[in-house]
Protein backbone atom coordinates (compact mmCIF):
# COMPACT_ATOMS: atom_id res chain seq x y z
CA UNK A 1 0.00 0.00 0.00
CA UNK A 2 2.69 2.45 1.07
CA UNK A 3 4.89 1.41 -1.83
CA UNK A 4 2.19 2.41 -4.30
CA UNK A 5 1.22 5.69 -2.58
CA UNK A 6 2.94 7.69 -5.30
CA UNK A 7 1.12 5.72 -7.94
CA UNK A 8 -2.31 6.46 -6.46
CA UNK A 9 -1.56 10.19 -6.35
CA UNK A 10 -0.45 10.04 -9.98
CA UNK A 11 -3.56 8.07 -10.99
CA UNK A 12 -5.90 10.49 -9.24
CA UNK A 13 -4.20 13.48 -10.88
CA UNK A 14 -4.44 11.84 -14.31
CA UNK A 15 -8.13 11.06 -13.88
CA UNK A 16 -8.98 14.46 -12.34
CA UNK A 17 -7.51 16.50 -15.19
CA UNK A 18 -10.37 16.00 -17.71
CA UNK A 19 -12.93 16.61 -14.97
CA UNK A 20 -11.32 19.93 -14.06
CA UNK A 21 -10.47 21.06 -17.60
CA UNK A 22 -12.76 19.13 -19.97
CA UNK A 23 -12.28 21.59 -22.82
CA UNK A 24 -8.57 22.26 -22.53
CA UNK A 25 -6.48 21.51 -25.61
CA UNK A 26 -3.64 20.55 -23.27
CA UNK A 27 -5.68 17.84 -21.61
CA UNK A 28 -7.54 16.24 -24.47
CA UNK A 29 -4.99 16.55 -27.29
CA UNK A 30 -1.58 16.94 -25.67
CA UNK A 31 -2.71 14.61 -22.88
CA UNK A 32 -3.14 11.73 -25.30
CA UNK A 33 0.34 12.29 -26.74
CA UNK A 34 1.75 12.37 -23.22
CA UNK A 35 0.00 9.10 -22.32
CA UNK A 36 1.26 7.47 -25.53
CA UNK A 37 4.82 8.51 -24.77
CA UNK A 38 4.53 7.38 -21.16
CA UNK A 39 3.51 3.85 -22.16
CA UNK A 40 6.29 3.69 -24.75
CA UNK A 41 8.90 5.02 -22.32
CA UNK A 42 7.73 2.67 -19.55
CA UNK A 43 7.86 -0.32 -21.91
CA UNK A 44 11.32 0.66 -23.11
CA UNK A 45 12.40 1.10 -19.50
CA UNK A 46 11.52 -2.54 -18.80
CA UNK A 47 14.10 -3.51 -21.38
CA UNK A 48 16.69 -0.76 -20.87
CA UNK A 49 16.33 0.25 -17.25
CA UNK A 50 15.43 -3.08 -15.66
CA UNK A 51 17.21 -5.61 -17.85
CA UNK A 52 20.01 -3.31 -19.04
CA UNK A 53 19.54 -4.05 -22.74
CA UNK A 54 19.60 -0.99 -24.97
CA UNK A 55 17.21 -0.67 -27.90
CA UNK A 56 17.43 2.04 -30.54
CA UNK A 57 14.58 0.50 -32.51
CA UNK A 58 11.63 0.72 -30.16
CA UNK A 59 9.64 2.93 -32.56
CA UNK A 60 9.60 0.02 -35.02
CA UNK A 61 7.23 -2.01 -32.82
CA UNK A 62 5.11 1.06 -32.15
CA UNK A 63 4.91 1.54 -35.93
CA UNK A 64 4.14 -2.11 -36.65
CA UNK A 65 1.17 -1.90 -34.28
CA UNK A 66 -0.09 1.28 -35.91
CA UNK A 67 0.35 -0.02 -39.45
CA UNK A 68 -1.23 -3.42 -38.77
CA UNK A 69 -4.32 -1.65 -37.50
CA UNK A 70 -4.39 0.85 -40.36
CA UNK A 71 -3.67 -1.57 -43.20
CA UNK A 72 -5.85 -4.45 -42.00
CA UNK A 73 -8.88 -2.30 -41.24
CA UNK A 74 -8.69 -0.02 -44.29
CA UNK A 75 -7.37 -2.32 -47.01
CA UNK A 76 -8.89 -5.57 -45.81
CA UNK A 77 -11.91 -4.29 -43.93
CA UNK A 78 -11.02 -6.21 -40.80
CA UNK A 79 -12.64 -5.55 -37.44
CA UNK A 80 -10.42 -3.08 -35.48
CA UNK A 81 -9.96 -5.41 -32.51
CA UNK A 82 -9.15 -8.32 -34.77
CA UNK A 83 -6.63 -6.17 -36.62
CA UNK A 84 -5.04 -5.16 -33.32
CA UNK A 85 -4.83 -8.81 -32.26
CA UNK A 86 -3.25 -9.73 -35.59
CA UNK A 87 -0.69 -6.97 -35.05
CA UNK A 88 0.09 -8.25 -31.56
CA UNK A 89 0.56 -11.80 -32.83
CA UNK A 90 2.81 -10.65 -35.67
CA UNK A 91 4.94 -8.53 -33.33
CA UNK A 92 5.14 -11.33 -30.76
CA UNK A 93 6.45 -13.75 -33.36
CA UNK A 94 8.79 -11.23 -34.99
CA UNK A 95 10.25 -9.95 -31.72
CA UNK A 96 10.67 -13.48 -30.36
CA UNK A 97 12.46 -14.70 -33.47
CA UNK A 98 14.70 -11.62 -33.49
CA UNK A 99 15.32 -11.58 -29.74
CA UNK A 100 17.46 -14.70 -29.53
CA UNK A 101 20.16 -13.65 -32.01
CA UNK A 102 19.96 -9.91 -31.26
CA UNK A 103 20.14 -10.16 -27.48
CA UNK A 104 23.29 -12.25 -27.60
CA UNK A 105 24.95 -8.98 -28.51
CA UNK A 106 25.96 -6.49 -25.86
CA UNK A 107 26.54 -2.76 -25.54
CA UNK A 108 27.38 -0.96 -28.76
CA UNK A 109 26.72 -4.02 -30.88
CA UNK A 110 23.23 -4.43 -29.46
CA UNK A 111 22.63 -0.72 -30.06
CA UNK A 112 23.66 -1.14 -33.69
CA UNK A 113 21.52 -4.22 -34.27
CA UNK A 114 18.39 -2.62 -32.81
CA UNK A 115 19.15 0.57 -34.75
CA UNK A 116 19.27 -1.52 -37.92
CA UNK A 117 15.93 -3.12 -37.04
CA UNK A 118 14.34 0.31 -36.59
CA UNK A 119 15.69 1.57 -39.90
CA UNK A 120 14.63 -1.54 -41.84
CA UNK A 121 11.08 -1.34 -40.53
CA UNK A 122 10.94 2.37 -41.35
CA UNK A 123 12.16 1.77 -44.90
CA UNK A 124 9.54 -0.93 -45.24
CA UNK A 125 6.78 1.55 -44.28
CA UNK A 126 8.06 4.00 -46.90
CA UNK A 127 8.73 1.52 -49.72
CA UNK A 128 5.90 -1.02 -49.51
CA UNK A 129 3.53 1.63 -50.81
CA UNK A 130 0.83 -0.66 -52.16
CA UNK A 131 0.17 -1.70 -48.56
CA UNK A 132 1.33 1.23 -46.49
CA UNK A 133 0.61 4.15 -48.75
CA UNK A 134 4.31 5.00 -48.88
CA UNK A 135 5.57 8.33 -47.54
CA UNK A 136 2.05 9.81 -47.67
CA UNK A 137 0.73 7.26 -45.20
CA UNK A 138 -2.90 6.16 -44.98
CA UNK A 139 -5.89 7.72 -43.33
CA UNK A 140 -9.51 6.90 -42.62
CA UNK A 141 -9.42 4.23 -39.93
CA UNK A 142 -12.78 3.01 -38.65
CA UNK A 143 -13.94 4.18 -35.24
CA UNK A 144 -12.82 1.96 -32.40
CA UNK A 145 -15.56 1.03 -29.97
CA UNK A 146 -15.31 -0.65 -26.59
CA UNK A 147 -18.29 -2.95 -25.82
CA UNK A 148 -20.51 -1.03 -28.21
CA UNK A 149 -19.46 2.43 -27.03
CA UNK A 150 -17.67 4.24 -29.85
CA UNK A 151 -14.58 6.27 -28.91
CA UNK A 152 -15.49 9.25 -31.01
CA UNK A 153 -14.42 12.35 -29.10
CA UNK A 154 -11.11 13.75 -27.86
CA UNK A 155 -12.25 13.39 -24.28
CA UNK A 156 -13.15 9.71 -24.74
CA UNK A 157 -9.75 9.12 -26.27
CA UNK A 158 -8.15 10.75 -23.26
CA UNK A 159 -9.95 8.33 -20.94
CA UNK A 160 -8.95 5.35 -23.07
CA UNK A 161 -5.30 6.33 -23.17
CA UNK A 162 -5.22 7.37 -19.52
CA UNK A 163 -6.56 4.01 -18.35
CA UNK A 164 -4.26 2.04 -20.64
CA UNK A 165 -1.31 4.15 -19.46
CA UNK A 166 -2.19 3.76 -15.77
CA UNK A 167 -2.47 -0.01 -16.19
CA UNK A 168 0.94 -0.19 -17.87
CA UNK A 169 2.57 1.93 -15.16
CA UNK A 170 1.03 -0.21 -12.41
CA UNK A 171 2.25 -3.36 -14.12
CA UNK A 172 5.75 -1.97 -14.48
CA UNK A 173 5.87 -0.90 -10.82
CA UNK A 174 4.75 -4.32 -9.67
CA UNK A 175 7.12 -6.30 -11.82
CA UNK A 176 10.13 -4.66 -10.14
CA UNK A 177 9.16 -6.33 -6.87
CA UNK A 178 8.45 -9.76 -8.29
CA UNK A 179 10.55 -12.81 -9.01
CA UNK A 180 10.73 -11.81 -12.69
CA UNK A 181 11.78 -8.30 -11.72
CA UNK A 182 14.65 -9.64 -9.64
CA UNK A 183 15.70 -11.84 -12.54
CA UNK A 184 15.80 -8.77 -14.80
CA UNK A 185 17.87 -6.91 -12.22
CA UNK A 186 20.26 -9.86 -11.99
CA UNK A 187 20.69 -9.92 -15.77
CA UNK A 188 21.36 -6.19 -15.64
CA UNK A 189 23.95 -6.62 -12.88
CA UNK A 190 25.94 -9.51 -14.30
CA UNK A 191 24.76 -12.18 -16.68
CA UNK A 192 27.34 -14.65 -15.44
CA UNK A 193 26.35 -14.20 -11.83
CA UNK A 194 22.68 -14.46 -12.83
CA UNK A 195 23.34 -17.78 -14.59
CA UNK A 196 25.14 -19.07 -11.53
CA UNK A 197 21.94 -18.53 -9.56
CA UNK A 198 19.91 -20.52 -12.03
CA UNK A 199 18.49 -17.64 -14.06
CA UNK A 200 18.08 -18.62 -17.71
CA UNK A 201 19.42 -15.29 -18.98
CA UNK A 202 18.66 -15.87 -22.67
CA UNK A 203 15.04 -16.65 -21.83
CA UNK A 204 14.63 -13.72 -19.45
CA UNK A 205 16.06 -11.27 -22.00
CA UNK A 206 13.94 -12.62 -24.80
CA UNK A 207 10.76 -12.47 -22.69
CA UNK A 208 11.29 -8.87 -21.67
CA UNK A 209 12.11 -7.92 -25.26
CA UNK A 210 8.89 -9.50 -26.53
CA UNK A 211 6.86 -8.00 -23.74
CA UNK A 212 8.17 -4.52 -24.30
CA UNK A 213 7.61 -4.85 -28.07
CA UNK A 214 4.02 -6.01 -27.59
CA UNK A 215 3.23 -3.12 -25.26
CA UNK A 216 4.58 -0.70 -27.88
CA UNK A 217 2.57 -2.50 -30.56
CA UNK A 218 -0.75 -2.13 -28.70
CA UNK A 219 0.05 1.54 -28.09
CA UNK A 220 0.66 1.88 -31.83
CA UNK A 221 -2.75 0.39 -32.69
CA UNK A 222 -4.54 2.75 -30.32
CA UNK A 223 -2.47 5.66 -31.63
CA UNK A 224 -3.45 4.86 -35.24
CA UNK A 225 -7.15 4.86 -34.37
CA UNK A 226 -6.87 8.02 -32.34
CA UNK A 227 -4.92 9.93 -35.00
CA UNK A 228 -7.04 8.43 -37.78
CA UNK A 229 -3.88 8.59 -39.86
CA UNK A 230 -0.49 6.87 -39.99
CA UNK A 231 2.65 7.86 -41.85
CA UNK A 232 6.23 6.58 -41.65
CA UNK A 233 7.41 9.86 -40.15
CA UNK A 234 5.94 9.04 -36.71
CA UNK A 235 8.00 5.84 -36.45
CA UNK A 236 11.40 6.97 -37.60
CA UNK A 237 14.79 6.44 -36.04
CA UNK A 238 14.48 9.89 -34.44
CA UNK A 239 11.45 8.83 -32.47
CA UNK A 240 13.33 5.79 -31.13
CA UNK A 241 16.10 8.10 -29.96
CA UNK A 242 13.54 10.40 -28.35
CA UNK A 243 12.16 7.43 -26.40
CA UNK A 244 15.63 6.50 -25.18
CA UNK A 245 16.12 10.14 -24.14
CA UNK A 246 12.88 10.05 -22.13
CA UNK A 247 13.99 6.97 -20.24
CA UNK A 248 17.49 8.28 -19.53
CA UNK A 249 16.36 11.79 -18.71
CA UNK A 250 13.86 10.63 -16.11
CA UNK A 251 16.19 8.06 -14.58
CA UNK A 252 17.13 4.70 -16.02
CA UNK A 253 15.56 1.80 -14.17
CA UNK A 254 12.81 3.79 -12.48
CA UNK A 255 9.23 3.51 -13.74
CA UNK A 256 8.33 6.98 -12.57
CA UNK A 257 11.57 8.20 -14.08
CA UNK A 258 10.29 7.03 -17.47
CA UNK A 259 6.94 8.68 -16.72
CA UNK A 260 8.53 12.03 -15.81
CA UNK A 261 10.90 11.84 -18.79
CA UNK A 262 7.99 11.19 -21.13
CA UNK A 263 5.89 14.01 -19.68
CA UNK A 264 8.78 16.47 -19.86
CA UNK A 265 9.80 15.60 -23.41
CA UNK A 266 6.19 15.70 -24.62
CA UNK A 267 5.35 19.01 -22.98
CA UNK A 268 8.61 20.92 -23.50
CA UNK A 269 8.12 21.37 -27.26
CA UNK A 270 4.62 22.72 -26.61
CA UNK A 271 5.87 25.19 -24.03
CA UNK A 272 8.91 26.19 -26.06
CA UNK A 273 6.75 27.09 -29.06
CA UNK A 274 6.84 30.68 -27.82
CA UNK A 275 10.56 30.81 -28.68
CA UNK A 276 9.75 29.93 -32.30
CA UNK A 277 13.02 29.43 -34.18
CA UNK A 278 15.05 28.92 -31.07
CA UNK A 279 12.81 26.10 -29.84
CA UNK A 280 15.10 23.24 -30.77
CA UNK A 281 18.20 24.98 -29.46
CA UNK A 282 16.66 25.69 -26.08
CA UNK A 283 15.28 22.16 -25.95
CA UNK A 284 18.77 20.75 -26.53
CA UNK A 285 20.30 23.07 -23.96
CA UNK A 286 17.78 21.99 -21.30
CA UNK A 287 18.56 18.32 -21.93
CA UNK A 288 22.29 18.97 -21.65
CA UNK A 289 21.95 20.91 -18.42
CA UNK A 290 19.82 18.20 -16.83
CA UNK A 291 22.20 15.41 -17.81
CA UNK A 292 25.28 17.35 -16.64
CA UNK A 293 23.89 18.25 -13.24
CA UNK A 294 21.61 15.27 -12.61
CA UNK A 295 23.32 12.38 -14.39
CA UNK A 296 21.25 9.81 -12.48
CA UNK A 297 18.10 11.28 -14.06
CA UNK A 298 15.54 13.85 -13.07
CA UNK A 299 13.15 11.67 -11.10
CA UNK A 300 15.80 9.63 -9.34
CA UNK A 301 17.55 12.85 -8.26
CA UNK A 302 14.28 14.28 -6.96
CA UNK A 303 13.51 11.08 -5.10
CA UNK A 304 16.94 11.01 -3.44
CA UNK A 305 16.68 14.65 -2.35
CA UNK A 306 13.20 14.02 -0.97
CA UNK A 307 14.32 11.06 1.14
CA UNK A 308 17.40 12.91 2.32
CA UNK A 309 15.24 15.81 3.53
CA UNK A 310 12.81 13.38 5.14
CA UNK A 311 15.66 11.70 6.98
CA UNK A 312 17.13 15.00 8.14
CA UNK A 313 13.73 16.05 9.42
CA UNK A 314 13.14 12.83 11.35
CA UNK A 315 16.65 13.04 12.82
CA UNK A 316 15.93 16.64 13.82
CA UNK A 317 12.76 15.67 15.65
CA UNK A 318 14.56 12.73 17.28
CA UNK A 319 17.14 15.19 18.64
CA UNK A 320 14.39 17.31 20.14
CA UNK A 321 12.78 14.39 21.97
CA UNK A 322 16.10 13.19 23.35
Amino acid at each position, binding site marked *: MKRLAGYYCFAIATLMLPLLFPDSYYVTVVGVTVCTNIVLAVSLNLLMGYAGQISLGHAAFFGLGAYSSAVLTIKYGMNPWLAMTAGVIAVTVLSYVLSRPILRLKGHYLAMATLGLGIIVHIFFVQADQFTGGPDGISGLPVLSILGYPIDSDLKWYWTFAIFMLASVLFSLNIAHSRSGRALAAVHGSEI*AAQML*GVDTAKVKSHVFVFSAVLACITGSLFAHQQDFVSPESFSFFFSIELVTMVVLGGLGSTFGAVIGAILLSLLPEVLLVFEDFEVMIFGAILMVIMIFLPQGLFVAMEETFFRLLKRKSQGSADVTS
Partner: protein
Amino acid sequence: MLHVKNLNTRYGPIHVLKNVSLHVNQGEIVSIIGANGAGKTTLLVSISGLITPVSGEIIFEGQRINGISPAKIVSLGIAHAPEGRQVFSPLTVMENLRLGAFARKKASEQEIEDDIGEVFSLFPRLRERQDQTAGTLSGGEQQMLAIGRAMMAKPRLLMLDEPSLGLAPKLVEVIIKTVVDLNSKGTTILLVEQNARKALEISHRAYVLETGRITIQGPASELAEDSEIRRAYLGKDYRDISER
Protein backbone atom coordinates in the same frame (compact mmCIF):
# COMPACT_ATOMS: atom_id res chain seq x y z
CA MET B 1 28.42 -37.57 -5.69
CA LEU B 2 30.41 -35.64 -8.30
CA HIS B 3 32.69 -37.40 -10.77
CA VAL B 4 34.81 -35.52 -13.27
CA LYS B 5 36.46 -37.76 -15.86
CA ASN B 6 39.20 -36.78 -18.31
CA LEU B 7 37.94 -33.23 -18.60
CA ASN B 8 39.46 -31.00 -21.28
CA THR B 9 38.54 -27.34 -21.54
CA ARG B 10 39.74 -24.70 -23.96
CA TYR B 11 39.49 -20.95 -24.27
CA GLY B 12 39.93 -20.69 -28.04
CA PRO B 13 43.45 -21.87 -28.81
CA ILE B 14 44.45 -22.13 -25.13
CA HIS B 15 44.13 -25.58 -23.67
CA VAL B 16 43.36 -24.94 -20.01
CA LEU B 17 42.30 -28.19 -18.36
CA LYS B 18 44.13 -31.26 -19.54
CA ASN B 19 42.55 -34.62 -18.73
CA VAL B 20 41.40 -33.57 -15.30
CA SER B 21 39.74 -36.30 -13.25
CA LEU B 22 38.50 -35.94 -9.73
CA HIS B 23 35.64 -36.94 -7.50
CA VAL B 24 33.83 -35.54 -4.51
CA ASN B 25 32.00 -37.85 -2.12
CA GLN B 26 28.84 -36.98 -0.25
CA GLY B 27 29.61 -35.05 2.95
CA GLU B 28 33.20 -34.18 2.12
CA ILE B 29 35.08 -30.93 1.92
CA VAL B 30 37.41 -31.27 -1.04
CA SER B 31 39.79 -28.50 -1.91
CA ILE B 32 41.67 -27.70 -5.04
CA ILE B 33 44.87 -25.78 -4.57
CA GLY B 34 47.24 -24.41 -7.12
CA ALA B 35 48.98 -21.30 -8.37
CA ASN B 36 47.43 -18.46 -10.37
CA GLY B 37 46.43 -19.60 -13.84
CA ALA B 38 46.49 -23.29 -12.99
CA GLY B 39 42.84 -23.65 -14.05
CA LYS B 40 41.07 -23.79 -10.70
CA THR B 41 38.35 -21.32 -11.60
CA THR B 42 38.01 -22.85 -15.07
CA LEU B 43 37.35 -26.19 -13.44
CA LEU B 44 34.51 -24.73 -11.37
CA VAL B 45 32.91 -22.84 -14.25
CA SER B 46 33.08 -26.01 -16.35
CA ILE B 47 31.20 -27.89 -13.64
CA SER B 48 28.56 -25.16 -13.29
CA GLY B 49 28.08 -25.12 -17.05
CA LEU B 50 29.23 -21.58 -17.83
CA ILE B 51 31.71 -22.97 -20.32
CA THR B 52 31.29 -26.19 -22.23
CA PRO B 53 34.18 -28.63 -22.00
CA VAL B 54 35.73 -29.96 -25.22
CA SER B 55 35.77 -33.54 -24.01
CA GLY B 56 35.35 -35.60 -20.90
CA GLU B 57 32.47 -36.17 -18.56
CA ILE B 58 30.98 -34.49 -15.52
CA ILE B 59 28.60 -36.72 -13.62
CA PHE B 60 26.53 -35.45 -10.71
CA GLU B 61 24.53 -38.00 -8.73
CA GLY B 62 24.61 -40.42 -11.62
CA GLN B 63 23.51 -37.88 -14.23
CA ARG B 64 25.77 -36.51 -16.94
CA ILE B 65 25.67 -32.72 -16.66
CA ASN B 66 28.19 -31.42 -19.17
CA GLY B 67 26.46 -29.61 -22.00
CA ILE B 68 23.31 -28.72 -20.08
CA SER B 69 22.47 -25.12 -19.21
CA PRO B 70 23.84 -23.45 -16.07
CA ALA B 71 20.28 -22.73 -14.95
CA LYS B 72 19.41 -26.42 -15.03
CA ILE B 73 22.61 -27.39 -13.21
CA VAL B 74 21.67 -25.06 -10.35
CA SER B 75 18.26 -26.67 -10.09
CA LEU B 76 19.92 -30.10 -9.93
CA GLY B 77 21.63 -29.02 -6.71
CA ILE B 78 24.98 -27.45 -7.49
CA ALA B 79 25.50 -23.86 -6.36
CA HIS B 80 28.55 -21.80 -7.19
CA ALA B 81 29.74 -18.79 -5.19
CA PRO B 82 31.95 -17.16 -7.81
CA GLU B 83 35.36 -15.61 -7.46
CA GLY B 84 35.31 -11.91 -6.68
CA ARG B 85 31.89 -12.33 -5.05
CA GLN B 86 29.76 -10.95 -7.93
CA VAL B 87 26.96 -9.69 -5.71
CA PHE B 88 24.41 -7.42 -7.38
CA SER B 89 25.49 -4.06 -6.01
CA PRO B 90 22.38 -1.99 -6.78
CA LEU B 91 20.11 -4.58 -5.14
CA THR B 92 19.60 -4.89 -1.40
CA VAL B 93 20.97 -7.74 0.70
CA MET B 94 17.44 -9.14 0.91
CA GLU B 95 16.93 -9.02 -2.86
CA ASN B 96 20.29 -10.69 -3.44
CA LEU B 97 19.29 -13.52 -1.10
CA ARG B 98 15.90 -13.92 -2.79
CA LEU B 99 17.66 -14.15 -6.13
CA GLY B 100 19.70 -17.00 -4.69
CA ALA B 101 16.47 -18.98 -4.40
CA PHE B 102 15.52 -18.21 -8.00
CA ALA B 103 15.95 -21.77 -9.23
CA ARG B 104 13.62 -23.17 -6.55
CA LYS B 105 10.39 -22.56 -8.37
CA LYS B 106 8.34 -24.75 -6.07
CA ALA B 107 9.52 -23.26 -2.79
CA SER B 108 6.82 -21.44 -0.82
CA GLU B 109 7.28 -17.92 0.50
CA GLN B 110 7.46 -19.38 4.01
CA GLU B 111 10.29 -21.78 3.13
CA ILE B 112 12.25 -18.95 1.57
CA GLU B 113 11.70 -16.74 4.61
CA ASP B 114 12.94 -19.59 6.82
CA ASP B 115 16.04 -20.06 4.69
CA ILE B 116 16.78 -16.34 4.78
CA GLY B 117 16.50 -16.60 8.57
CA GLU B 118 19.02 -19.44 8.49
CA VAL B 119 21.49 -17.37 6.45
CA PHE B 120 21.04 -14.52 8.93
CA SER B 121 21.76 -16.80 11.86
CA LEU B 122 24.94 -17.90 10.08
CA PHE B 123 25.91 -14.30 9.29
CA PRO B 124 24.25 -11.95 11.81
CA ARG B 125 25.97 -9.02 10.08
CA LEU B 126 23.76 -9.56 7.06
CA ARG B 127 20.62 -9.27 9.15
CA GLU B 128 21.73 -5.82 10.34
CA ARG B 129 22.33 -4.77 6.76
CA GLN B 130 19.35 -6.46 5.09
CA ASP B 131 17.92 -3.29 3.51
CA GLN B 132 21.26 -1.86 2.47
CA THR B 133 22.36 -2.21 -1.14
CA ALA B 134 25.04 -4.84 -1.62
CA GLY B 135 27.43 -2.30 -3.13
CA THR B 136 27.68 -0.49 0.20
CA LEU B 137 28.84 -3.59 2.10
CA SER B 138 32.46 -4.21 3.01
CA GLY B 139 34.42 -6.89 1.17
CA GLY B 140 33.92 -9.39 3.99
CA GLU B 141 30.20 -8.74 4.17
CA GLN B 142 29.92 -9.13 0.40
CA GLN B 143 31.65 -12.50 0.67
CA MET B 144 29.19 -13.52 3.38
CA LEU B 145 26.38 -12.42 1.09
CA ALA B 146 27.83 -14.39 -1.84
CA ILE B 147 27.97 -17.53 0.29
CA GLY B 148 24.54 -16.86 1.79
CA ARG B 149 23.10 -16.33 -1.67
CA ALA B 150 24.55 -19.61 -2.90
CA MET B 151 23.08 -21.31 0.19
CA MET B 152 19.62 -20.01 -0.76
CA ALA B 153 19.62 -22.41 -3.71
CA LYS B 154 19.66 -25.24 -1.10
CA PRO B 155 22.52 -26.95 -2.91
CA ARG B 156 23.70 -30.44 -2.13
CA LEU B 157 27.09 -29.47 -3.56
CA LEU B 158 28.41 -25.98 -2.87
CA MET B 159 31.37 -24.74 -4.87
CA LEU B 160 33.30 -21.85 -3.36
CA ASP B 161 35.81 -19.98 -5.46
CA GLU B 162 38.47 -18.19 -3.40
CA PRO B 163 36.19 -17.24 -0.51
CA SER B 164 39.08 -15.72 1.45
CA LEU B 165 40.36 -13.54 -1.38
CA GLY B 166 41.19 -10.02 -0.24
CA LEU B 167 39.80 -10.41 3.27
CA ALA B 168 41.35 -9.40 6.60
CA PRO B 169 42.75 -12.41 8.53
CA LYS B 170 40.01 -12.19 11.13
CA LEU B 171 37.31 -12.37 8.45
CA VAL B 172 39.09 -15.27 6.78
CA GLU B 173 38.62 -17.15 10.08
CA VAL B 174 34.89 -16.34 10.10
CA ILE B 175 34.43 -17.53 6.55
CA ILE B 176 36.44 -20.71 7.08
CA LYS B 177 34.49 -21.50 10.23
CA THR B 178 31.23 -21.07 8.31
CA VAL B 179 32.39 -23.45 5.61
CA VAL B 180 33.05 -26.10 8.27
CA ASP B 181 29.64 -25.37 9.84
CA LEU B 182 27.83 -25.74 6.53
CA ASN B 183 29.60 -29.00 5.89
CA SER B 184 28.71 -30.40 9.30
CA LYS B 185 25.06 -29.58 8.51
CA GLY B 186 25.27 -31.82 5.48
CA THR B 187 26.36 -29.71 2.52
CA THR B 188 29.16 -31.18 0.44
CA ILE B 189 31.79 -28.60 -0.43
CA LEU B 190 34.22 -28.17 -3.28
CA LEU B 191 36.60 -25.42 -2.32
CA VAL B 192 39.09 -23.55 -4.47
CA GLU B 193 41.62 -21.64 -2.42
CA GLN B 194 44.92 -19.90 -2.76
CA ASN B 195 45.30 -19.94 0.97
CA ALA B 196 46.44 -23.57 0.82
CA ARG B 197 47.25 -23.83 4.50
CA LYS B 198 43.72 -22.90 5.59
CA ALA B 199 42.14 -25.04 2.88
CA LEU B 200 44.11 -28.14 3.87
CA GLU B 201 43.31 -27.60 7.55
CA ILE B 202 39.58 -28.01 7.01
CA SER B 203 39.42 -30.35 4.01
CA HIS B 204 39.06 -34.10 3.97
CA ARG B 205 40.84 -34.50 0.66
CA ALA B 206 42.65 -32.21 -1.74
CA TYR B 207 43.91 -32.02 -5.28
CA VAL B 208 46.81 -29.97 -6.55
CA LEU B 209 46.26 -28.45 -9.97
CA GLU B 210 49.37 -27.37 -11.90
CA THR B 211 49.06 -25.76 -15.34
CA GLY B 212 45.84 -27.63 -16.06
CA ARG B 213 46.82 -31.06 -14.73
CA ILE B 214 46.14 -32.75 -11.42
CA THR B 215 49.61 -33.54 -10.11
CA ILE B 216 49.06 -34.58 -6.53
CA GLN B 217 45.98 -35.86 -4.72
CA GLY B 218 45.17 -37.45 -1.42
CA PRO B 219 43.90 -36.88 2.11
CA ALA B 220 44.40 -33.25 3.12
CA SER B 221 46.41 -34.16 6.22
CA GLU B 222 48.92 -36.08 4.09
CA LEU B 223 49.19 -33.30 1.56
CA ALA B 224 49.88 -30.81 4.33
CA GLU B 225 52.94 -32.92 5.26
CA ASP B 226 54.14 -33.44 1.68
CA SER B 227 57.51 -31.75 1.32
CA GLU B 228 56.86 -30.66 -2.26
CA ILE B 229 53.58 -29.00 -1.30
CA ARG B 230 55.11 -27.42 1.76
CA ARG B 231 57.79 -25.88 -0.38
CA ALA B 232 55.55 -24.73 -3.21
CA TYR B 233 52.31 -23.72 -1.52
CA LEU B 234 52.78 -23.45 2.21
CA GLY B 235 56.05 -21.51 2.20
CA LYS B 236 57.44 -23.61 5.09
CA ASP B 237 61.07 -23.75 4.01
CA TYR B 238 61.13 -20.27 2.67
CA ARG B 239 63.91 -19.27 5.05
CA ASP B 240 66.08 -22.34 4.35
CA ILE B 241 65.90 -21.74 0.63
CA SER B 242 66.44 -18.02 0.66
CA GLU B 243 69.37 -18.24 3.04
CA ARG B 244 71.10 -21.00 1.22
